[in-house]
């Protein structure tokens, strides 16, 4: 009996230590882009890293944070992704709930810029993930001063919300995939 409880406490200690390591990796930026690839976590925490992340996610819940998994290339075939598929995913810590408009100002966004970003993302989603920059600029010009439109789009690109190809087509980029619940955004806009 005593031996069993020893084993359990040892296992707990192992997971506590792995969780600490995961927190360091996920909260502190290691590369140019935030987030950590699945294979990096596997290398540092071992093959059971998905379990470590799910325990961490539970710990983060009361703090209104979550571990977010984003598939950058192909989406997994089944709902429960295989370890090889997880290796290619990128993991982030994101806010679980919503920000209030006041809080959004605190994270460095002006209301105009945030509204512009929302419109741009929603428009690109409605156009099957790709829209000509000119069309987006026209749409933004309805409510933003002309001189600001181009600067704002460049800023969204710089932050990783959008990307642009050589034909001036805009696409959603990694930060939108990580931070924005695309379906919820469309539903919320249409229900207003």
């Amino acid at each position, binding site marked *: 009996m005593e031996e069993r409880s020893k084993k359990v406490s040892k296992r707990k200690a192992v997971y506590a230590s792995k969780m600490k390591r995961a927190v360091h990796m996920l909260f502190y930026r290691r590369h140019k882009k935030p987030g950590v690839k699945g294979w990096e976590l596997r290398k540092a925490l071992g093959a059971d890293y998905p379990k470590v992340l799910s325990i961490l996610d539970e710990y983060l819940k009361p703090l209104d944070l979550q571990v977010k998994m984003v598939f950058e290339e192909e989406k997994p075939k089944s709902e429960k992704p295989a370890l090889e598929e997880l290796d290619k995913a990128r993991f982030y810590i994101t806010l*679980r709930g919503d920000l209030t408009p006041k809080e*959004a100002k605190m994270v460095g966004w002006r209301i105009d810029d945030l509204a512009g970003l929302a419109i741009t993302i929603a428009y690109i989603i409605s156009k099957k993930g790709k829209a000509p920059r000119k069309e987006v600029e026209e749409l933004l010009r309805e409510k933003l001063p002309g001189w600001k439109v181009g600067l704002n789009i460049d800023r969204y690109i710089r932050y990783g919300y959008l990307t642009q190809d050589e034909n001036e087509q805009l696409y959603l980029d990694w930060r939108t995939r990580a931070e924005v619940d695309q*379906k919820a955004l469309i539903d919320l806009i249409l229900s207003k």
Partner: protein
Amino acid sequence: MQSKRERAKIGRERLQRVIEMCKAVEERSLDPFLVDVDEIIRVVREFFPEWEQPEDLCLDAEAINRLASVVRLQSEWVKHRSTLLYTDPFLLEEKIKRMEKDAIVEAFLGAWHPIVEFEQISLHSLKEALRYWVSLPPLKDRWKEFPMPEEAGGAATREELIRLRILQDKAFTEELENFWNELKKLVSEEGEDGRIRYWDFVGAETYEETTHRAFMTSFLVTYGYATLEVHPLEEEIFIKPFDRQQRRIAKKQLVSIPIAITVEEWEKWRRGAKK
């Protein structure tokens, strides 16, 4: 009754139209269901027995390839429409135009979960940085490894640059234009349909001269003095001079064509040229 040649001509035109239409759908993000796939397949099938020449078969293959891309787009379109994310762009555009900024922001905040990240120095990284600093040799010691050249620099004369083969005796543009005139003359004397085989133009008595001519030819093409015609099936390349230098069309996609100028190729050409 149409002759075989006339029928082939009509077939070619129709395939060309099919290719253009599929290209337009692909490039301009048009509704892929504008293309009547069954009708195109009927046309392709109807004219297929007429094709004998490799170019016609290539045209047929390209039409099928373009059609396959449109079918792929149709499948993506159906998938997108069947997802919960599908929204009519016009409906959304209208909605966005009517919404107040505050309402848009409120909607966005309901769907936005920003990444949490810290950019903060830790005691551990400070310790590592200090250790690195202690082991780093002073700048004056490190720069000793790269002694400055003793000789003082001066301006090189044009003659020296020519001797070092950095500059040519003639100005480059002048040399290029002479080369272009040579190409035009050769094409008018020995060419066919305003063009000449690539190797018949660049090939020279020595391998070095051949590489130099190939180098100059690449500039003729890049700067719009001439163009290359590549026939992959026949493995033949022709060079065709323009009467006037062409300005680059900004939107046109530029293509690089690598051509190996190996000793083996040069010897093969020489053997062929001497026969």
